[in-house]
């Protein structure tokens, strides 16, 4: 399957969602919901939790490799650029050669609408027996 066939537009995160995520995840770092603290820390405003971006990539995996059919063995990401509320995102993947037989290895990319890479990673999946 080509990279284009696995592109998925993801909705932008809204500030309200960041507050909900802070409450449910326990990650209550104020830079994610307090504009004053975020600016004092050197950011342009509140920023999206990195783990929320990773969760969006997990949702991407669910669309193309649903958990009813695939098991995730490894999932790792590197956060390259800050994501702000309102930034629309697009996730895509390229299949790589897998070192473990019977598994699929994906190189994942998450880009903003400017085409900037905000997050990249790798997922290794195995079909459920």
């Amino acid at each position, binding site marked *: 399957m080509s990279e284009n066939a696995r592109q998925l537009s993801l*909705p932008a995160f809204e*500030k309200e*969602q960041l*507050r*909900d*995520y*802070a*409450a*449910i*995840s*326990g*990650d*209550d*770092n*104020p*830079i994610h*919901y*307090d*504009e*004053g*603290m975020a600016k*004092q*820390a*050197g950011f342009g405003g509140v920023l999206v*939790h*990195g*783990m*929320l971006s*990773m*969760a*969006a990539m*997990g*949702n991407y*995996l*669910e669309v193309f490799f*649903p*958990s*009813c059919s695939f*098991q*995730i*063995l*490894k*999932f*790792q*990401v*590197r*956060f390259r650029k*800050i994501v702000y509320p309102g930034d629309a995102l697009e996730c895509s993947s390229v299949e790589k050669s897998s070192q473990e037989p019977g598994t699929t290895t994906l190189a994942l990319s998450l880009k903003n609408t400017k085409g900037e890479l905000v997050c990249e990673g790798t997922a290794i999946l195995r079909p459920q027996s």
Partner: protein
Amino acid sequence: MTAGKTIQPLYSIMDRVLEDDEKTSSIRFEVEAKKEHIVGFAKTVGFKGQGIPPTYFTFFRWAEFRWLSRLGIPLETVVHTEQAYEYHDKGEAGVTFTVETQVSQFRERRGLKMVTMTTRISVGNRLVVTSVASFLAKGVPA
């Protein structure tokens, strides 16, 4: 939102601390993965799959925050730079996880602090997930 207002966690992150002493090299605690919390987490992040969402284990980062505090790093100066999960076995709703977090690397250069922590999440003797998280601290804000 009012500046300085804190977020009220919806669930208790840890049920029981097993090891959290300044002299110990790891912090351990127990937490039950309640079904309603997993469902709430999945809904918040937009996960529509079966079982536990792949990033749900971020909920067990309480010890990472404890370690940052111990290292004198204010949370608001920290950005998450890398996250890796290795899933060894399935976790289910309703089970009690034992979470053990250690600092696996700490470097300081030109005012920047780089911390990597490794967390082992188990059910009894069964290792379910290994998490490796890296953070960059930019220094105390003015």
